């Protein structure tokens, strides 16, 4: 009836589908029962509870293809953003426990119960852990003309000027927020925090000298550090970071308590059959041993976890430990759950 113009649109869209087809985006959320022996019989969806293009999303997309190859199936990455990752996590908690819906989450999994009142899911009870993926180091950075020269100077300076120093972060529950809380606890000061909506704007104001300092992932900061637009005081991991060889660790700088990295892990809904969890965990290990994945992660200033850590048990133990740690840090910091 209507559509004289239709064919052209279809042609345009066919191009789209051609391209997307390469990435294999078919979905079958349908109800086929999870049969462990034949798994996977349909596409697996990995839910990333953060925006596309962010560090967590990037890590997920790196491992999705090698994991799919190891499983002999297809993996689709889907971003479900909102409320510090809790919307996407809640979605997966309520999904069919058939192994076709998987969650990639970071350190926020262990901090959400302390930050949100009605979470709608319980990290330990509603999920089965599959394995840890990577731990991204963080850096303590400041505007280029900020007075302190070294990490020790910084601690002295913020203690002496607690009333005027500003500490930026990328929003409530963001890795930078958590690291900032830890820093304040370790240094024994209470600073004025300045929240932003994401790392981009926070870093912009740091480069522009509007705020004094912050703590964020190497993924976000290393470019600005090497260009000398901001200065780095320390990295928060036990070892120095390859791409920033001159920056001391917090332990070297005298504050070993400030040890934090943005760890990532894979989860499935709690009642997923153990055989399927095993298969996923095995595929994760294969993917993390893939040289291409190792290379890509190195570019992000990070590395895959060891094979021993990419297991359900190691992941679960880490999650339990982190839940307790952060519960204490967050409530000590006087942050009210919302």
């Amino acid at each position, binding site marked *: 009836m*209507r*559509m*004289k*113009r239709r064919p*052209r*649109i279809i042609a*345009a*869209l066919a*191009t*789209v589908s051609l*391209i*997307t087809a*390469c*990435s294999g985006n078919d979905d079958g959320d349908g109800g086929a029962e999870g049969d462990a022996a034949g798994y996977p019989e349909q596409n697996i969806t990995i839910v990333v509870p953060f*925006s*596309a*293009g*962010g560090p967590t*999303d*990037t890590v997920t*997309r*790196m491992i999705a*293809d090698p994991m799919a190859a190891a499983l002999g199936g297809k993996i689709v990455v889907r*971003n*479900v*953003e*909102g*409320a*510090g990752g809790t*919307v996407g996590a*809640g979605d997966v908690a309520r999904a069919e426990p058939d192994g076709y819906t998987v969650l990639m989450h970071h350190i926020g999994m262990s901090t959400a119960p302390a*930050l949100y009142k009605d979470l*709608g899911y319980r990290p330990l009870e509603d999920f089965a852990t599959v394995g840890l993926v990577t731990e991204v180091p963080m850096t303590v950075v400041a505007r280029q003309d900020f007075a302190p020269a070294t990490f020790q100077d910084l601690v002295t300076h913020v203690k002496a000027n607690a009333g005027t120093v*500003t500490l930026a972060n990328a*929003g*409530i*529950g963001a890795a930078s927020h958590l690291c900032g809380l830890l820093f304040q606890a370790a240094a024994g000061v209470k600073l*004025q925090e*300045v*929240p932003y*909506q994401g790392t*981009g*704007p926070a870093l*912009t*104001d740091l*480069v*522009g*000298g*509007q705020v004094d300092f912050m703590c964020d992932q190497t*993924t976000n900061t*290393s*470019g*600005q550090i*090497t*260009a000398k*637009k901001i200065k780095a005081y320390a990295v928060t991991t036990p070892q120095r970071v390859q*791409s920033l060889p001159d920056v001391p660790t917090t332990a070297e700088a005298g504050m070993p308590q400030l040890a934090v990295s943005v760890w990532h892990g894979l989860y499935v809904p709690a009642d997923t059959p153990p055989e399927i969890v095993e298969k996923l965990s095995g595929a994760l290990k294969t993917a993390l041993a893939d040289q291409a994945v190792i290379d890509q992660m190195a570019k*992000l200033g990070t590395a895959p976890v060891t094979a021993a850590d990419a297991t359900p048990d190691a992941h679960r133990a880490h999650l339990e430990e982190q839940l307790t740690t952060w519960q204490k840090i967050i409530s000590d910091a006087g942050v*009210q759950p*919302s």
Partner: protein
Amino acid sequence: MDLLDNLLLGFSTALLIENVLYCFLGVLLGTAVGVLPGIGPTATVAMLLPITFNFEPVTALIMLAGIYYGAQYGGSTTAILINLPGESSAAVTALDGHEMARQGRAGPALAAAAVGSFFAGTVATVVLAVAAPPLAGVALRFGPAEYFSLVLFGLIVSIALARGSALKALAMIALGVLLGTVGQDIYTGTPRYVFGQRELYGGIDFVSVAVGMFGIAEILRNLENERTRVSLPASVTGLWPTAEDRRRIVGPILRGTGLGAALGILPGGGHVLASFTSYAVEKRISRRQDEFGHGAIEGVAGPESANNAAAQTSFIPLLTLGLPAHPVMALMVGAFIVHGITPGPNVINDEPALFWGLIASMWIGNVLLVLLNLPLIGIWVRMLRIPYQVLFPMIILFAAVGTYSLNFNAYDVYAIAFFGLLGYVLIKCGCEPAPLLLGFVLGPLLEENLRRALIISRGDPSVFLTRPISAVLLLLAAAALVITVLPAIRERRDTVFTEEE
């Protein structure tokens, strides 16, 4: 000449056959997703990002950038044809663009948009090539206090978007700002007005508000009296702008380009203001003020040029500082990282072929867009011949699917119905939706920067006046308010006076 060498390097990179091909694919895809409501460039870029992992970095970025500015271009088509803006900038285009379509002048409206965008894109590319690094420095001078004042200025200027009462426009702006507060407070995490629904924590999506208040409300209005309804033109009078049209759009395109290029540099929301400000300027200086809102071609050409210029120059903070100004650019930062390029100020020195190639590709992309879109005008205009009984269910269905596809969130879809009804009632009361939309977009920026500025100043409100850029912007805002409100007051005095006589 350094610049010539650089440009030569840029074009020799951008003109490689595969780069031109992917540039074309990018702008084509961008146009396609821009035309469809809902699915925006962000979703498209996110979807295609993993595919580009296998490309050369420069090819990948050329294509992703093409999707971004291609979508800016495509969005205006839907706004003009069926009053369905997908982005805040397109909402401005819809004001006069759709009026023109109703008068059978969809062709000239689309052509004015295409030509204006092309010219603006070309100039902005030159700006990018010549002055990117120093301009980036200017962008960094804008702290929270400056953004607060800038946004306040933008809100007051946008009273001009309404053709009726300034009082009602002001109320609509404030209402929009108020609706923008729905969702989680970024400073404390407190959820506001979410009624316990986690899906509302992220706030109301702009697309829902725009599609509801423009698209759905318009359909409800058209259906209220079907017998006398003349919603769409019986005949299309001419595909191309007349000689007079051509004369009338020169000024707006020039001014729009300048405004857009300047505002686009500011990463904290400058490009949102570009098209609104251009519209307000054109309306203010025009000798035909009455025509605005009733199909003035200046109201299409100016904002479209401003929008496209801003889309180009908003790459400046990304390319020279590694700081993204838009979700699409945040995705491009991801693309940089995956390709082993650390986004940051060093890209221009470390990867000159990439930097200049991307800039050159933007000009090529603009040429491709104009070549792609001018022939399409005839086809788009023919689309208006679809019987309304088919067209309006199509708009409703596509709007619902498109909005749902944003986040797979049912509340985004419910919001269309809510804003459709609200918009319908308000429009019937003589309140126009555009100011509300701008208030909705800028409101969160206003609150965020106000509170941030006060936190950083330790609660000292004088920062807004002691920082020079902020003070100047506040002065301008005050002046704009006086200019807008004075005539209204004088008018009312006149009416009161007449009544007393």
